[in-house]
């Protein structure tokens, strides 16, 4: 009886401890976000004479910055938002698609280009992500200038697709390694063409991991700063540039930055929530 109670007590302590840790980290995550959101509702003096914590208790919240964003600054906001959405989603789709094709090829067939075998090719692809962007930026700038790809969507889409490809190839290849080729082989024996096999059989099995890859590529493209800065001027500016531009001759405009950052995080969060079940099931197969 005593032992049973002790076991029960131990378990309760364990559960308590578990939630302590979970909630602590949840607090760590939420607290800065709370600060970010409340700042977007603060008057300038509330920020400079801060810190002011709780709305309605420490300071009177105002919606003027939000209103200004949606009325006066609507034009300035709409364009980067749309640009980010367009460039982000298209480049993510391309990265995922091309990554799928390349990963499939590298895991199902044997290649040999000179001395490079499958593993080497894979490493070369991944190494493209190792290149620090500052090396590439000026070179790409001059290439784009010559090709007329500056300040337009296509230019950014190409760059982001290329820079997220290593990620998508690496992740998808890992997934593919978990799936035994037997199912595909069976289908081929049954007379299905190879492309049909790819799209009708492999893709459905991979769908979760494909959505995971899409999300990661989208987020990296959505939040990218350096290339967007150098390769665009006005037509094709993206959200990160808009946020950075809020640092004026008066110092950072904390309230505007906060409001814009909240707006900027909505699409990635939305996509994450929507794709949640796929996402978790998706990276499911990475480990092994």
């Amino acid at each position, binding site marked *: 009886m005593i032992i049973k109670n002790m076991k029960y007590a131990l378990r309760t302590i364990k559960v308590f401890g578990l939630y302590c840790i979970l909630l602590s980290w949840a607090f760590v995550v939420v607290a800065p976000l709370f600060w970010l959101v409340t700042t977007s509702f603060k008057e300038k003096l509330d920020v400079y004479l801060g810190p002011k914590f709780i709305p309605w208790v420490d300071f009177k919240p105002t919606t003027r910055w939000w209103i200004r964003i949606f009325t006066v600054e609507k034009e300035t906001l709409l364009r980067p938002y749309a640009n980010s959405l367009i460039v982000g989603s298209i480049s993510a789709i391309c990265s995922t698609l091309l990554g799928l094709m*390349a990963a499939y090829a590298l895991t199902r067939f044997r290649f040999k280009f000179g001395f490079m075998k499958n593993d080497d090719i894979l490493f070369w692809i991944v190494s493209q992500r190792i290149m620090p962007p500052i090396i590439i930026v000026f070179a790409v700038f001059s290439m784009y200038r010559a090709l007329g790809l500056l300040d337009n969507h296509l230019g950014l889409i190409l760059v982001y697709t290329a820079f997220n490809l*290593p990620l998508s190839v*690496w992740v998808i290849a890992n997934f593919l390694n978990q799936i035994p080729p037997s199912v595909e082989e069976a289908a081929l024996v049954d007379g299905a063409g190879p492309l049909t096999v790819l799209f009708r059989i492999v893709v459905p099995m991979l769908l979760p991991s494909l959505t995971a890859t899409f999300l990661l590529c989208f987020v990296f493209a959505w939040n990218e700063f350096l290339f967007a800065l150098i390769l665009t001027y006005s037509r094709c500016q993206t959200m990160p540039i808009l946020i950075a531009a809020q640092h004026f001759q008066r110092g950072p405009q904390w309230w505007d930055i906060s409001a814009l950052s909240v707006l900027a995080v909505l699409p990635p969060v939305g996509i994450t929530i929507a794709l949640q079940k796929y996402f*978790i099931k998706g990276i499911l197969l990475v*480990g092994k």
Partner: protein
Amino acid sequence: MNTLGRWEKRLLLTPTVLLLLFFSIFPLVFTLALMFGRVSFTGGAMTINFAGLDNWRRLLRDQRFWNAVLVTLKIVGIAVLAEYCIGLLLALLLWQRPWGCGFFRVLYVIPMLLTPIAVGYTWRMILDVGRGPITGLLKQLGLSPIGWLTESSVALYSIVLIDVWQWTPFMFLLLYAGLEAIPKDYLEAAEVDGASGWKKFFYVVLPLLAPPSLAALLLRTVECFKIVDIIYITTGGGPGQATESLTLFGYNVGFRTFDLAYGATIAFTLFFMVLMAAMFFTMLTRNLRSIRLE
């Protein structure tokens, strides 16, 4: 499995390879030219003159360079380790499927979704020694404020803190998936054998987590080496040189003085360091794979 003709096989791989070549060949050549050259601008045209190993000699003697290397290594070493440990802890806990785990899963991912610039500004506000909330709380408790971003001894750790806050989700996700992938039978077999709790963890879970761990560590290390946004927004590399990472150093040299040649040299050094790290992890992965096959 070779029912696809050679060309169809190649076709699958080609777009990827072409796209990557497009963005890597010219930049690589350009960078090599810059590294061994000297840049000047006259009348609208940029000319690169050959300068041999000048840039390299200058780099190796440059105390600022070695400082940046040290700063970067410190940040990467501490941050990635911390992110791994915290991510692992969180993943293990949520793996128990406690009530509300779905909510926690989404919540924990959010920091990674914010633009790094936004994260930088947010933490700059929070760690502000004059008007930030942490200072406010410390004062309320009667303690003196700490210059998180203004004291040389603390600034670097503040950067680590911010990086950990933002990127632990990345580790968490990959490790959680790794845990979910462990076949139930392995765990059940271990339990039948009498192992439980810690034993199960060390002898079954951890080894099975090795591959996703290495994958996550590789990806995160590669990214962390390039850290710049957070530092640029919060401390600008300061106080003094306390938080100037390699990328920021290269950025300051290249963008503020337009000394492209020297900037390219710095960037290449970074590239080389990250390459070494990546190769290290890849080697580990391959060794692990061969061990496990036994």
